[in-house]
Structure formats: structure tokens, C-alpha cells
């Protein structure tokens, strides 16, 4: 690696003290004087017409300041009552009709949460139930009840400008890819493998539920404090909905108690803004855990894969992916598109056809979830990779390596692959788990920090070495895959250098645990040649911090990192000019390091930042300001073939290798060791990269083994943490290792790419593959519960 002073170093988190003392500011801690609290009446029906709402008794309840219905909002002059990032299909409060259980119908703002809840009990709503469609396959049948007769365009994002709603169908978006001659390849195939995989809806379960606060200030501007991953989007969308200029809305975001995709786009912001405007007082809405499950979910999917093999090569693959986007499209169309085009995998297959459908059902809306749909398609294609390899009698690792795309190869879309450390990730994960009888070698990884070496130790019990016994069987599995980063998207940043050599970074990237604050400080410090602790990163504030598309999709390190680096470079250019003028030398000969600017190779010829300010301004009372922008673009895909010379800015590769132990008597599966490999480009901060890999893998282990939202007749049966289990400390495998692959990207900041989702992508397929290795049964539905495995063993006569 190049000789960097701070990039690549495991710098400590700057928010750590606030977090271990419990003092970190969250929206939940904010209590402006006169604060009102919100409670919302939600639909008990998955699909119904609203016949009437009587809110008169609630309005006269003590402590109640306002009661709003969808009809009230629709009647407000100049207000657009619908929103959504892909289609404006979601009303702030239901209008005429409810489309999922838990849809918001009536909102109350009152002096206390309890007063608001009590008032809701006095609201009377009469419903006329409508036919319900819950299954994503049932929903596309011609006789299925239509959930949206009319869909309004949104226009919020450039990459969704081409998205047009289906006509009188629950399919609200269809992505299509055609490459080669699939039919001919199937006709000539030696063998054909056909499988259907499913994954259920699930929930993000951020420990901090959604919370938003709004007030109208003395100048009449609308101020929002919100737990959001997309402050810029919230401002733009609210301005559109409320019919006011963007600068009349100020959105601020403090630390988030987790996001994982749940806190993107508009969630509670429109209702608190409207209630604040109605009452003239500050209004806060904090979701209960139960409401969290009704607000946003992970897309359930049905994935049909058909693969042709000739000799030992895959010659064709046909993918049909049905995404259950629930009652509102949310960002579903983008997921269906971006993840859809990767659903045949990062493999050399000459003939491919992909159909990816976004389908409405009467479930809570599905949105982005760590991995943006890619974990669902990898679950399918890398389960099938194992099925094919085993069917051909080929080693599954070798089979993947043989077909994996390399530098310069064309992805299925026709886009060349660059800096995608897929093969290295597969090899290192396989070595670490002791694939193919090789001894497990987790210790041989050139781990980047002490943390990685100690993880084995942290895991404690040395189970992996012991032989399985009695009814228990062990097996190993591997899976790999890639995600393409969301493109186009935009990040802007401003860097302000102060006369004392300290700096402020203005960025709308949201710190939600990933370490972005510290990482952006490292990037700015490296470029400016100052110490990272002299850099303050300002929290998102749309009055101050420039536009950023979203803090999600493993895009911030690359996009915001590049924007910050460019902004810092522009400041540095001004600084160098000042020094060059004073010393009467060429600015190109200067270098900045340790708070000094000096002639390269002659360190004594130079000056401190402060001296440079004096040289430039004759005063210390000023600043140098630089702006940076990162705006990668794409070549639009051909609508018929899905081909594009450039469909994404970068790829990130993931590989998981696991060893499992399965009790053949009970079906219980335990993961004994887990190796999460991911390509970070350059690890700006290796500690955070490792945390992201392990954290994402742990989260998705829960989704693989037990998480699912269970519905009966459209009613969610397990919308509480008593009934919906997520991974606890006991579910972390005895050995859990991050493997940070580093294949620098030519345009990444110092070669870096994102890694926030990488560890999540390949968990499910790796575990299912290990399950088959252990006991010889293939399960094609997650979660891999004991019941399901037991049933599969029984059916297989084992």
C-alpha cells in the first residue's frame, strides 16, 4: 500500500466516549418546550374501504391538540398527500382505502403519548373489507384483486426516471435482461437444473425505532430532527409535498441507533411536519416496536432459476424473480432493477435471460434492507451453484472459481468488471474454513488489526476441531456473490480549513454505527496533511451540509469519501498557492504533512498552516473553503436487453465460508465457524471494515436461521421481539472471522470502496450449502429452522 499517514490506520471512533456514557444525542432525547406527542390509529384490516371516520369525540379529549385523517390532509390547500421514492403511491394517512394491516389511518397530537393513545380509542372508523392478496405469485394472476388502480409518478430520483407503473396489474415494475440465445442453449444442454428458492419478509429491527420531531420556527420555516438515513431526500420530498421552497425546510440528523435501510426516504417526517403546522407546536412521533414491523420490511422473494450445463460449463441461465413489495412500492422498483440485473450471478454464462418483477401485495411495504435485495438473489443463485457443482461431481469451490468473472470480463449486462476481488475472497474464505480437507487456517490471514486476531479467542470454545458424534453431523459450505453499487448517485461535501490548522467537514452522511464520521475525518486529514483529530465532521443539517443521495448501499466511503477528498484537495490547492507565493516557488513542488506545507525533499523550506494563512490573508480571522462532488454516471440500459456499457460505478465481492453442525434428530443447525470475506478496495480504517463484515454476517445469520414475519389472513402474528427473534450473543459462532480483501479501485478515495453490506450478501447460501454437505438434504426456503430441516430429513428418509 502507498505510504499514507492516516489512511489504513485503525483509528479509534470519535463517538465512542459519548456512546459508552449514554450521552450521545438521539432524536428521542430532544424535548423542546411545548412538545406534543403523536399516536396513530392503524388499520386492523389488510385491505378495506374506509366507509367513515368519526373523530369528534377524540378532538374534545383533554390534552389533545390535533386529530388528522387522510381526508383532512388531502383537503389542506397546496398539500400533496402522497409520497414515495419510486411512485407517489403512499398516502401520509390512508385516503378512502387501507391496503395493509397497520396502515396509518388517524393521527393524534397530544400533551403526552398516553393522552394521544387514549384519544385514539375514541375514534370510530367503519371499514368495508375488500378481497386480500398476500402471496406474491397469487398477486400476479389475472383475477387477483388490484391493489393500486392508479399509480402516480414520483420523480424523486434520476435512476428511477424510466420506471413506469404497470396497467391494471399488481406488477408495478418489470426489469428485463436478454443475452445470447437461451432457448438454443437449453435445447443443446447435457443437463438442466431447475430450482425455486424463497425468502420471507423480515424486519430490520434497529434498536432505536423510527423517531421524528418537527416544529415551525419563528420565521415560519419547518424544522425536522429525524432518525433518517437520507436527510437530503427528506428535505426535497417534504418541500414538494408541502409546496414550499426547499430552503424553508431544515432537516437535521443526530446519531442513529441503527438504520440497515429501515430509515431511508420519508417515514414519519410528513406526519410530524403536518401536525406541527396544524398545531403551531413541536411534535414528536416515536414508533413502538410493533409499529416498526408495520412500517418497513425486507422484500420476501420467490426466485426461479433454470441453468443449462454442457460438459462442465454453464451455458445458460434463466432467472425469474418475484419481489413482494407489499402495499406500497417504496424503493422496490430500484431493488428489482439493481438487484435484478445481478440475479444470474458473477459468473461466465454466455446465454442469460432475467425477468425481475416488483409486485404489490396486502402486506406492510417492503423497502431497502442491508444488501438492497442482493442477499435474496445470492441466496438463490449460490445455492444453485452448489446444486449444479454437486450434480456434476465437481468441487463447489473450484466450480465457482472456474466460472467467476475476473478483471476486464464482461458482467451479464455487458459492463466490464473492475477491481472486484471475487476470486481472492472465495479462496481466502475457503482456506480459512479448511475447505476440502485442508487444515483450517484462520490464523494465516494477514489480519489488519489486533481485533481480527482476537476474534478467535473471543469466540472461546474451540469447537470446530472436535469430531461430530451421535446424531450430530458436520459440514462445510461456501457461497460468493457480488453487488453493484447504486449508480447514478451524488455526494457533495465542503471542507473548511481554519487558520489554526483545524478543519470542518460538511457532509450529509449519517453516522449510524458504521464509523463514517471517523472515516471521513481520516480522508480529509490525509489529503490536508493534518492530524485526524483536528478534523470535525459536522452532522447532517440541510441548511449547512450539501446534498447526498443516501447513507446506504455501501456507497458513502466511495462517494462521500471522494467528495471530501476533492473538497480537501481544493483547499490544499489554495493553501499551496499561498505558500508558493510567499516562498516564490512552484506550488507543484509542495507537500503537506503534520500540519506543515513544505518543499518536497526539503522539509525545512516551508511553513505551518497558520503561517500560510498569514501569508495569504495577513490575518488569522478567515477560512479556506473547498467544495467536492462525486457523481458517477451510467450508460442507460437498453430497455429490451438490459445491456449497458456501464451499469455501475463499482462492484463489491463477498464470500462466506461456514462449518455447521446439524442434529439429525431435532433438525437443529448450529454454525460452528464463520468466515466473512469482503473486498474493501482499500481499507481506510481496517477496524471498521472488520466490524462491518462481522456485524453484517451476524445480522444475516439471524435472517438465515430464524427470522421471518409470519402472516395469517394478512395479520402479522409475530410483530414483537417476544415472538420475532434476532441474533443474540449466543447465536454468534464459536469462531467468527472477518477477511478484508483489498483490491484498490482506480477511482476510489485512496482506492477504497464500501463494505457495509458485503458481509450480509452470502450468508444464507453458505449455510444451506453446509447443511447439504452435513446431512445430504437441500432446503430451498429460508429461514433454515429446525422444523424445516427436520422435515427435509424426514422426507429424504434420513
Amino acid at each position, binding site marked *: 500500500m502507498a505510504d499514507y499517514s492516516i489512511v489504513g490506520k485503525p483509528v*479509534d*471512533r470519535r*463517538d*465512542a*466516549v*459519548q*456512546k*459508552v*456514557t*449514554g*450521552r*450521545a444525542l*438521539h432524536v*428521542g*432525547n430532544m*424535548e423542546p418546550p411545548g412538545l406534543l406527542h403523536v399516536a396513530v390509529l392503524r388499520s386492523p384490516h389488510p385491505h378495506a374501504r374506509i366507509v367513515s371516520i368519526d373523530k369528534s369525540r377524540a378532538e374534545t379529549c383533554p390534552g389533545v391538540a390535533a386529530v388528522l385523517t387522510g381526508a383532512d390532509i388531502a383537503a389542506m390547500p397546496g398539500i400533496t398527500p402522497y409520497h414515495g421514492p419510486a411512485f407517489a403511491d403512499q398516502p401520509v394517512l390512508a385516503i378512502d382505502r387501507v391496503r395493509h394491516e397497520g396502515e396509518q389511518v388517524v393521527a393524534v397530537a397530544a400533551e403526552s403519548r*398516553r393522552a394521544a393513545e387514549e384519544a385514539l380509542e375514541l375514534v370510530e372508523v367503519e371499514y368495508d373489507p375488500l378481497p386480500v392478496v398476500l402471496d406474491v405469485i397469487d398477486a400476479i394472476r389475472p383475477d387477483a384483486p388490484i391493489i393500486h388502480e392508479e399509480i402516480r409518478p414520483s420523480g424523486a430520483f434520476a435512476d428511477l426516471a424510466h420506471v413506469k407503473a404497470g396497467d391494471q396489474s399488481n406488477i408495478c415494475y418489470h426489469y428485463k435482461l436478454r443475452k445470447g440465445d437461451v432457448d438454443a442453449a437449453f435445447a443443446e444442454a447435457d443437463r438442466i437444473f431447475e430450482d425455486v428458492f424463497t425468502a420471507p419478509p423480515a424486519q*430490520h*429491527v*434497529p*434498536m*432505536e*425505532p423510527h423517531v421524528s420531531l418537527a416544529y415551525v420556527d419563528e420565521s415560519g420555516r419547518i424544522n425536522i430532527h429525524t432518525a433518517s438515513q437520507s436527510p437530503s431526500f427528506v428535505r426535497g420530498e417534504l418541500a414538494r409535498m408541502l409546496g414550499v421552497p426547499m430552503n424553508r425546510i431544515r432537516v437535521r440528523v443526530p*446519531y*442513529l*441507533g*441503527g*438504520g440497515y435501510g429501515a430509515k431511508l426516504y420519508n417515514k414519519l417526517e410528513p406526519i410530524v411536519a403536518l401536525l406541527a403546522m396544524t398545531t403551531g407546536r413541536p411534535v414528536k412521533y*416515536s414508533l*413502538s*416496536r*410493533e409499529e416498526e414491523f408495520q412500517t418497513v420490511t425486507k422484500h420476501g422473494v420467490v426466485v426461479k432459476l433454470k441453468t443449462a450445463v454442457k460438459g462442465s460449463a454453464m451455458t445458460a441461465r434463466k432467472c425469474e424473480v418475484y419481489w413482494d413489495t407489499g402495499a406500497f412500492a417504496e424503493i422496490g422498483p430500484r431493488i428489482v432493477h439493481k438487484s435484478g440485473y445481478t440475479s444470474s450471478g458473477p459468473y461466465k454464462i454466455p446465454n442469460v435471460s432475467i425477468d425481475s418483477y416488483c409486485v404489490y401485495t396486502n402486506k406492510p411495504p417492503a423497502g431497502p434492507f442491508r444488501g438492497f435485495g442482493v442477499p435474496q438473489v445470492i441466496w438463490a443463485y449460490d445455492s444453485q451453484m452448489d446444486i449444479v457443482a454437486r450434480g456434476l461431481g465437481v468441487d463447489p469451490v473450484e466450480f465457482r472459481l472456474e466460472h467467476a468473472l475476473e478483471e476486464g470480463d464482461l458482467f451479464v449486462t455487458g459492463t466490464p468488471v473492475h477491481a472486484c476481488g471475487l476470486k481472492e475472497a472465495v479462496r481466502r474464505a475457503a482456506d480459512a474454513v479448511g475447505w476440502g480437507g485442508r487444515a483450517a487456517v484462520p490464523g494465516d490471514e494477514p489480519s489488519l488489526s489486533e*481485533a481480527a486476531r*482476537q476474534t478467535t479467542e*473471543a*469466540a*472461546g*470454545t474451540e469447537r470446530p476441531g472436535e469430531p461430530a458424534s451421535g446424531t450430530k453431523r458436520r459440514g462445510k459450505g461456501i457461497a460468493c456473490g457480488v453487488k453493484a453499487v447504486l449508480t447514478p448517485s451524488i455526494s457533495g461535501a465542503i471542507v473548511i480549513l481554519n487558520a489554526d490548522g483545524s478543519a470542518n467537514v460538511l457532509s450529509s452522511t449519517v453516522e*449510524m*454505527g*458504521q*464509523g463514517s464520521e471517523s472515516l471521513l475525518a481520516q480522508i480529509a486529514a490525509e489529503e490536508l496533511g493534518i492530524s485526524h483529530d483536528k478534523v470535525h465532521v459536522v452532522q447532517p443539517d440541510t441548511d449547512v451540509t450539501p446534498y447526498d443521495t443516501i447513507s446506504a448501499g455501501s456507497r458513502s466511503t466511495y462517494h462521500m469519501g471522494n467528495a471530501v477528498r476533492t473538497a480537501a484537495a481544493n483547499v490544499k490547492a489554495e493553501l499551496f498557492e499561498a505558500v508558493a507565493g510567499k516562498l516564490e516557488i512552484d506550488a507543484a513542488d509542495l507537500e503537506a504533512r503534520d500540519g506543515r506545507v513544505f518543499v518536497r525533499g526539503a522539509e525545512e523550506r516551508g511553513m505551518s498552516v497558520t503561517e500560510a494563512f498569514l501569508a495569504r490573508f495577513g490575518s488569522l480571522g478567515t477560512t479556506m473553503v473547498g467544495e467536492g462532488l462525486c457523481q458517477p454516471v451510467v450508460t442507460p440500459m437498453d430497455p429490451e436487453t438490459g445491456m449497458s456499457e456501464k451499469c455501475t460505478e463499482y462492484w463489491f465481492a463477498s464470500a462466506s465460508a461456514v462449518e455447521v453442525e446439524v442434529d439429525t434428530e431435532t433438525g437443529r443447525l448450529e454454525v460452528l465457524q464463520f468466515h466473512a470475506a469482503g473486498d474493501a478496495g482499500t481499507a481506510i480504517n481496517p*477496524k471498521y471494515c472488520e*466490524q462491518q463484515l*462481522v*456485524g*453484517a*454476517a*451476524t*445480522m444475516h445469520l439471524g435472517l438465515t436461521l430464524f427470522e421471518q414475519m409470519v402472516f395469517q389472513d394478512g395479520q402479522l402474528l409475530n410483530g*414483537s*421481539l*417476544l415472538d420475532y427473534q*434476532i*441474533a*443474540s*450473543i*449466543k447465536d*454468534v459462532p464459536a469462531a*467468527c472471522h472477518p477477511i478484508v480483501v483489498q483490491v484498490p479501485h482506480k477511482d476510489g478515495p485512496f482506492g477504497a470502496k464500501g463494505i457495509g453490506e458485503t458481509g450480509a450478501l452470502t450468508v444464507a447460501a453458505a449455510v444451506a450449502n453446509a447443511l447439504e454437505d452435513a446431512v445430504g438434504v437441500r432446503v430451498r426456503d429460508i429461514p433454515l429452522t429446525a422444523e424445516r430441516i427436520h422435515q427435509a430429513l424426514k422426507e429424504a428418509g434420513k
Partner: protein
Amino acid sequence: MERNISLTVNGEQRELAVNDADTLLEVLRDGLKLWSVRESCGVGACGSCTVLLDGRPVSACFLLAARLDGRSVETVEGLDGDGTLHPIQQAFLENDAAQCGYCTPGFIMAAKALLEEHGDPTDDQIRDHLSGNLCRCGGYPNIMRAVRAAAGRMSGG
């Protein structure tokens, strides 16, 4: 019904007027502004609101305050009152055991109860004891390391 209770909070005796329906969480957050006590699941299943009640870890969201007259409650705010971090906080800091940090105060209080009962807990004891605290960032390996490090530090090791 409203009633008066006496509650020792972080060593300080407080006389509080509470409603029968008020949870300990509501009293600590809304009443006393102890923001480290975090609401998350509301049913005592996630550990985000873990505080110590007479030294035992409890979920504040699942206890009625009116029943706690005369009891003693400890929150993270009470750990670094003198301006220096408690050894558990220091260990969490040094071992990068906080990511989004929302669950961190609950983990620290649960760890404190454990380490006061077992100076040198086994890994299985740590896991058992912390299994009621959930971290969605998946930072468990570092939390394990932090609790081990804190045990060493508190026992003078």
C-alpha cells in the same frame, strides 16, 4: 392514580410523583431525563433499557414505577459521575464495543451486574448473562472482549 414514591437514583434519593401506569423507563427518561435508558422493544425482550434495581439487572420498560418505593436504581449516568470512565466503560471504549451505541448502556449495566457477582466469569457465563441484550449491529465479539477486559481490570488483573 398518582402516588408518591421514594427512589434512590444513582445514589441520590428522589421523591417522585408517579402514575400507576408509569413504567420505570418513563420515570427515568421523561421524568429524570436519564437518556441513557433506551426504549426499544417495550416488552422486556431486548435489554436496551437495562438498569440495575438494587444491583440486579432489570428491563425498565417492563416494571411499574409505583411498585418500586424505597428501591435503588442505577443507570450508566451514575458510572462516571466523577468525570472518569468506569472500568467497564473504558473496556467498551478500548475494544470498539459500541457501534451505533443505542444498546451500549444496557450492555454496560448488564455487564456490571455480572462482574459484581462473578469477578472472573467464564465465556459461557458472559454469554448466558448477556443473552437478553440485543445488538443489531452484530458487535457481539467486541462486546465479549470488552467484558473480559473489564473483568481483568476490575479484579486488578
